[in-house]
């Protein structure tokens, strides 16, 4: 086997584990605030938005085989523009890392480690993640394959333990949505799908390029499925009003579990402990990506050297917001716009330029 190659199965696992992270906890509540009972529409459409961009990436990599996204960017753009692109991408990744870290620490502090200072939680996680980020993408993909079953198991577990006391009529009424609210809802839901940009790094190193798109889309649909299950379980457990009130309803719903026999009560501790792994697997690739971008900017051989310097930067970003409200109202908004630029506008621009250049060469 060649070095730093990943199989398509690994690509799929990498996508799923990167996308599913902290978004899964607050997504049901956020889409319910925008669209009430019809939040699932936002989840579905938000999940379909990345599809054309994954297709574009695939076409781009087919135009320039064996080259990475950043090499292509450098080739088709003037160096100056390419650097601006890189810097935007870099800012995006470190803001994502800071954001995920902060929300992660807030959740852990709220449910598990009450007395631990938030900075300690942040630093331990950052150090652990940076260790993974130093390795090649192939290694991260292997980690992803290990964590993939946990992610698939979570919604199934959630469904099974909640099954006895779900009230399915809470899903009704459907299709009572306000058309004006749909874009808002989709925008909110889309932020839960951040992380599919990892395909920009992973597409060109897959073993079988022809089927990469298929596996990526399969991974994306898995994510949509997981989100939909979590949304419907929380909605039918709580009803729409209480769902809107919660900040992290996906964890609270586990506290609702009340099966005969005492040993399945207060499961939130166990589930959160597992969830740490899930967050880890979505932070690793982002951290790795930011290292890779710096490598491209400074033209060094490896990205490992930059990782230690990124730790303080992301740490500072994650402790800037005063509280959780600022994190979700301000930081998340900034992040959504950055994500829009990085995951949608940049690939399209690069693709169009590349396409025009290729045609010019031919004629």
């Amino acid at each position, binding site marked *: 086997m060649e070095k730093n190659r990943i199989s398509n199965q690994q690509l799929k696992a990498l996508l799923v584990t990167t996308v599913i992270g902290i978004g899964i906890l607050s997504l049901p509540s956020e889409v319910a605030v925008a669209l009430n009972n019809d939040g699932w529409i936002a989840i579905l459409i938000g999940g379909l938005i990345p599809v054309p961009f994954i297709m574009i990436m695939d076409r781009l990599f087919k135009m320039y085989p064996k080259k990475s996204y950043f090499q292509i960017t450098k080739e088709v753009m003037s160096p100056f523009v390419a650097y601006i692109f890189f810097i935007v991408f870099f800012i995006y990744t470190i803001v994502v890392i800071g954001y995920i870290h902060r929300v992660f620490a807030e959740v852990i502090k*709220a*449910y598990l480690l*009450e*007395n631990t200072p938030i900075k300690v939680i942040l630093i331990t996680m950052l150090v652990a993640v940076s260790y993974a980020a130093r390795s090649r993408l192939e290694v991260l993909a292997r980690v992803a394959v290990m964590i993939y079953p946990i992610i698939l198991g979570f919604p199934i577990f959630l469904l099974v333990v909640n099954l006895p006391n779900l009230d399915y*009529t*809470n899903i*009704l*009424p459907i299709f*009572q949505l306000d058309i004006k609210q749909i874009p808002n809802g989709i925008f909110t839901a889309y932020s839960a799908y951040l992380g599919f940009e990892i395909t920009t790094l992973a597409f060109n190193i897959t073993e079988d390029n022809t089927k990469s798109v298929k596996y990526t889309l399969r991974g994306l649909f898995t994510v949509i499925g997981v989100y939909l299950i979590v949304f419907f379980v929380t909605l039918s*457990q*709580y*009803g729409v*009003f*209480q769902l809107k*009130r919660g900040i992290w309803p996906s964890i*609270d719903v586990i*506290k*609702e579990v*009340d099966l005969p026999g005492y040993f399945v*009560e*207060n499961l939130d501790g166990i589930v959160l402990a597992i969830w740490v792994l899930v967050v880890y697997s979505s932070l690793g690739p982002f951290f790795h990506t930011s290292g890779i971008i710096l490598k491209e900017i400074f033209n060094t051989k490896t990205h490992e050297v930059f990782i230690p310097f990124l730790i303080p930067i992301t740490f500072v970003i994650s402790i800037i917001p005063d509280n959780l409200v600022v994190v979700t109202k301000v930081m998340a908004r900034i992040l959504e716009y950055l994500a829009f630029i990085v995951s949608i506008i940049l690939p399209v621009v690069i693709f169009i330029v590349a396409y025009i250049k290729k045609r010019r060469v031919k004629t």
Partner: protein
Amino acid sequence: MKKKIIIVGLLSLIFLSGCWDKVEIDQRIFVSTIGVDLHEESGMKKYMVTYEYPNINAIGKNATEDQKVYVHSTPASSIFQAGRELSTQIPFPFYYKHLKVLILGEKLLNEEKMVRQVIDELNRDTKVNKNIQILAAEGKVSDIINANVIRAQTTDGVLYSNVKNNRTSGKYTVQTLTGLISTLDFAGATVIPKVTVEGDRYSVSGGCLLKNYKHVAWLDEKENRGLSFVRGQVENETLDAFYKGDIISFTVIQSSSNKEVNLDKEIDVTFSVRLEGYLQGYIIGKDKTAFDMKVIEEMEKVLEEDVKKEIQSIIKKIQKTYKADVIGIGEHLSKFEPKKWREIKDDWDNIFPDINIDLSVDVKIRRIGLTK
């Protein structure tokens, strides 16, 4: 080099063991019941909060102490503030993760704002299990908690065991924190079990009708059973009726209830209640037999009439007197007839008393026991 690594490793055993701030189980206080009542004095301390917690040293075979349960009361500005107030008298910290029961006092229930504050605090807290049982006390809360101290046997608290084991009986309707909030969200009204105290014994029976977090009325056992029939929640309840001068008792083991809403002209609601069960007792005698289709049918008729009367009287009460939609008609409309609901939801309190409610009861005696 190797030595250094070994030294670092050994030192880390001391510092990273993670046990330096451990708290032994007998040095924690697991609050099992919280009672909240009104403290009628000016100032911030508007609540009279009572904590009940088991004495860990009195549990198990080799118990070293006799007193099973401790009860402490203090005036406080909120239920968790009470824990801080009490910490001046009690050596160990309080843990709320195993909280099972919240009792709201009668006087408190008349203050909508204060009930809302209590419920919000519990719903917001990260440690409290959202499945705690909510009860309403007729009278003073501290009397009730003190009454069950005498009967204390279990670590969860007597009240909790009581409520938990009879949750399907019609005498009262159990209500959890999440259930309370979501039914109040949907319908604006709900019923929680009522606890009363007579002498030194408490009893859980009947219900407290809440409307928008405010006490409206007390329901007695029978009224509460009528409501439970309409909601189809009864699974373990015995009915008595007169059949040709003899008392028959019938145990319900399964009940279901269906609503049908007709919006043609006015809002017409039809409830069809279905009860299944077995004959518990009749009378012994030469000419008395239940092993006869005709007899069974007649018995079913008698029971149906009784149940119907019971339900109708309570429905009339909640409709005309209390104007509280606890039978889920508003919720049903909002889910299945959203268009109509949007028109009427702001005016629901005035519309609800005037809707037509029809009722059909179907009792099935499935088994008659071992004798004919």
